[in-house]
């Protein structure tokens, strides 16, 4: 019989714990984490993973924290109030990464040929006054939420391609921009299709271009977390990405590839998005808002680099920030870069 000294027993126990920890990172720990989300269809990956129990399977007890805008979400990650979130790359996000607070760990929403993407718009009042193509927007008021937002980036890329100058008009909120576009206070804007299309039909504005034509392979939103989670909580972060990816795959199967029941998926998403509207009305918007969320949270590094370089060229973030400061590319498959 093997004699088991106290020291040996301790070593054995320690070894077992370490081994199980290495094998199945967060599994069976039922770890409580907080995930930040906006009530947009583009966050469906999280909603599906939660509703269908993919997070629970990965050993995570997820609690959603809902936000009104992307910017506060980035700050909440930095302050440690939430663990993971999905949002567009903005100047604020890059600044926080530069301060060593957050890291981009994966990709989410992306533009893809064949799937309706974000649109460039011209307000009806301006359209009637003869501004009918993007080139005509030269010197006109172009709505953005804030300097350094994704709207600013999309406008600037279009302006550079068309060789025109835009007068960027910060209006803070998407709601305020929609109001200003309707009343003709601003001339141009870009937005996701499920907002663009219904109001174009109603005559508030005219769709004059696709963002995908000006910014190919645009990585619109990314998955990000605190620098601490990325560096020291590897298991938990991998578990989160695994659950999230399963949710994304289900979403794509139902909404884009048509290999799963779309109605059921719409029901699920409707629990989180457009909750103030009845199912029949919300369904149209949810289906209209379908965009590709990258499978396996793959990240297009080329697009991220392009966005980073643009923010730097505009003097919105420090010139010495590198891609490595912003991105931890060890978690997911990367494209380009």
């Amino acid at each position, binding site marked *: 019989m093997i004699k088991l000294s106290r020291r040996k027993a301790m070593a054995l126990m320690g070894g077992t714990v370490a081994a199980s920890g290495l094998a199945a990172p967060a599994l069976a720990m039922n770890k409580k984490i907080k995930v930040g989300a906006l009530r947009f269809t583009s966050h469906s990956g999280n909603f599906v993973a939660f509703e269908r129990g993919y997070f629970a399977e990965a050993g995570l007890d997820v609690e959603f924290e809902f936000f009104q805008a992307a910017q506060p979400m980035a700050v909440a990650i930095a302050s440690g109030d939430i663990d993971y979130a999905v949002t567009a790359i903005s100047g604020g996000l890059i600044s926080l990464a530069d301060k060593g607070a957050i890291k981009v760990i994966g990709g989410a929403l992306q533009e893809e040929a064949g799937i309706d993407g974000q649109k460039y718009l011209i307000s009806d009042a301006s359209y009637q006054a003869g501004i009918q193509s993007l080139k005509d927007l030269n010197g006109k008021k172009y709505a953005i939420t804030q300097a*350094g937002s994704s709207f600013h980036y999309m406008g600037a890329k279009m302006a550079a391609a068309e060789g025109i100058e835009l007068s960027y008009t910060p209006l803070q909120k998407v709601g305020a921009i929609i109001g*200003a576009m309707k009343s003709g206070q601003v001339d141009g804007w870009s937005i996701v299709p499920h907002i663009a299309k219904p109001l174009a039909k109603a005559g508030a504005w005219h769709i004059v271009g696709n963002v995908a034509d000006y910014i190919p392979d645009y990585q619109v939103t990314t998955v990000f977390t605190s620098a601490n989670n990325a560096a020291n909580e590897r298991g938990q972060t991998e578990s989160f990405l695994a659950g999230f990816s399963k949710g994304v795959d289900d979403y794509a199967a139902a909404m884009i590839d048509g290999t799963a029941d779309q109605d059921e998926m719409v029901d699920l998403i409707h629990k989180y998005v457009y909750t103030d509207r009845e199912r029949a009305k919300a369904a149209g918007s949810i289906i209209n808002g379908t965009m590709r969320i990258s499978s396996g949270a793959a990240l297009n590094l080329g697009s991220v680099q392009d966005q980073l370089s643009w923010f730097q060229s505009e003097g919105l973030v420090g010139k010495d920030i590198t891609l490595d400061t912003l991105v931890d590319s060890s978690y997911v498959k990367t494209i380009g870069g």
Partner: protein
Amino acid sequence: MSDTSKRTVAFRGGGFAPKPQAWIGVMVFVVLILVAEWGTRAGWISALTLPKPSDVLETFRQLYSSGLLFQHLGPSLARLAVGATLGVSIGISVGVLIGLFSYIRSGLVPVIAAIFPIPKIALLPLFVIWFGIGEGSKYALIAFGTFTPTVVATYGAVDNVDRTLIRMGQSFGLSWWSIVRKIILPGALPGILSGLRISLSIAIILLVAAEMLGAQYGIGAYILEAGSLYDLERLFAGVVILSLLGVVVSAVISFIERRMLGWRS
């Protein structure tokens, strides 16, 4: 008797009389800034919590040397000047009318009380529709924000004018207009000016709100941009400019007080 005459009693009076110590205020600022500088350099204040004061100074210097400072300061000062002039002049007129006429008082005081607590920022989208996204809505917001506190301070000051002076003027046979011009208005001036300190500070606060919508340049727009970029150095540089504006406004009012209230001493 001889016993008690020998006992000396220490003088217990004095104190409880604040005397101005000119350098202490400056010292407090210097110490606070030095502690922040030391903390951020040593690392026990993280870059996420506070910017380095020396970096803020450097940002400020760049802002000045690139000429951007005046590009931002110009529109903001114009908005402050136009908005505050409108709000304060209408506010003083309405306040004096409320102070003088019972009907106007009964009619307007409830209205003023009703609009005072409205957060003017909440009305910003409405102002954009009424006055356009250009300068109009910004003037209107600042004017509206300075109007109500000015009215309240003004009619309060008119109410506080010494009634015995008015009765004396009446005994000497002064006309109603003379009493208003020579007794009520000068008597209300100290109260009106101290009310101005509050309303002009509110104007500076509202500057940031006014520049939320559709402003490319302006101190408020600069601060909002720095906030959305999480650029703490620029954020603090902007906040310092607002503080300095406040100090300047306060100094200007002190100057006016000395000039116009010389009769008090």
